[in-house]
């Protein structure tokens, strides 16, 4: 299975955010997207997922077979938001996404154990701290199988121990033949190709420095 982007361009509100992005990701590889704020990392992830229309170029998945014919069907998208309901318990939230996404992998309890949230599944999601919420959202990735993970600042709010544990989970996913595209400022602790955005392109309006 391969993820291929050719001359990909994205825009927000009619203004080009990035253009000419190209990469080919093989099975088991990870791509880390870095760059300053506003360089289009999140937009790139959303364009890859198909949540935003691409302005130019093409991005596609090859060799997905019948189970994963399109990117949308092969992807776990972890955005800034955790996609969990604060009024429901952690277990209820996870069980819903596991049922809805299909292709069951770990069951809910195991997934929570894996991210270090064992024993708090009965709490409403709203009671959790920022880091715990992020870990619950990561548990969602483990509950159903998807070959491609699109992660937007996945370690935001995580402590050192959780970061290391998440790095281990990402490596395990890659070893099992998965692919990862992660946008981040922080080192993720995994072996990955780096895609730097926003350096060659000076199209963005320069922000004045506020002293």
């Amino acid at each position: 299975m391969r993820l291929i982007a050719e001359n990909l361009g994205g825009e927000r509100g009619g203004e080009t955010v990035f253009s000419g992005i190209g990469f080919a990701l093989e099975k088991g590889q990870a791509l880390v997207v870095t760059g300053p704020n506003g360089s289009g990392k999140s937009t790139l992830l959303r364009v890859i997922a198909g949540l935003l229309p691409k302005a130019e170029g093409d991005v596609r998945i090859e060799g997905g077979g019948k189970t994963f014919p399109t990117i949308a069907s092969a992807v776990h998208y972890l955005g800034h938001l955790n996609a969990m309901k604060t009024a429901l318990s952690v277990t209820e939230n996870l069980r819903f996404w596991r049922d809805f996404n299909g292709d069951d992998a770990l069951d809910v309890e195991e997934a929570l154990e894996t991210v270090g949230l064992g024993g708090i599944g009965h709490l409403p999601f709203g009671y959790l701290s920022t880091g715990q919420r992020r870990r619950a959202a990561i548990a969602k990735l483990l509950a159903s199988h998807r070959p491609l993970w699109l992660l937007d600042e996945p370690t935001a709010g995580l402590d050192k121990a959780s970061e290391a544990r998440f790095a281990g989970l990402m490596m395990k996913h890659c070893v099992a033949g998965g692919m990862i595209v992660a946008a981040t400022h922080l080192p993720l602790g995994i072996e990955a190709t780096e895609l730097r955005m926003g350096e060659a392109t000076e199209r963005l309006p320069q922000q004045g420095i506020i002293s």
Partner: protein
Amino acid sequence: MWSLFARDIRLNIRAGGGALTGVIFFLAVIATIPFGVGPDLKLLSRIGPAILWIGALLACLLGLDRLFQADREDGSLDLLVLGNDRHMLALTVLVKCLAHWAGSVLPLVVAAPLLGLFMNMEPLGIGATALTLLVGTPAITFIGAAGAAVAVALPRGGLLISVLVLPLTIPVLIFGVSASYGATADPDPFLQPFLILAALTLFLGVLGPASAALALRHGTD
């Protein structure tokens, strides 16, 4: 799909859900009418079905803005849209509509017979109005879903949805009320307007979710 239905129902019932808001609003509208109209029992029973329908229609519109907005705010909507290959998005929207109807609108239908007593309606008229509400209100939810999908990105979209949706609900209101009258007033037919009402619900059950899905697919940002 069943899990989505169960989740939305659960959210509706738990804190922050709008299950009771509609019923209270409905009660407030119906309870104040007799004070405004005066103690003319004949007049009240004559306008009863129409008032019940108008009250239920407005109460239906009340919670619609949260139908997709709540999912958009916590990021769930992105994942529901991405799930399009496994669960057709229009079907996802239909399930969300049904859950919304069962959680927020069905209580109105259940409350309608009681509120019918406030309007001095006969048992037959009350039964007919409750039946037409049961058959007709899903149509309002389906149209509302399309409006809610268009206004999903607007922070105060509630009023806009009502303005968008209200003209489209008028046929439902007309046939609902005329079927309710048909059951009690003798020369008027009951079955014909009732069947048209049922047809409207079925028709909008396809058109509403399909157009809402189209709006949601192109409305992500």
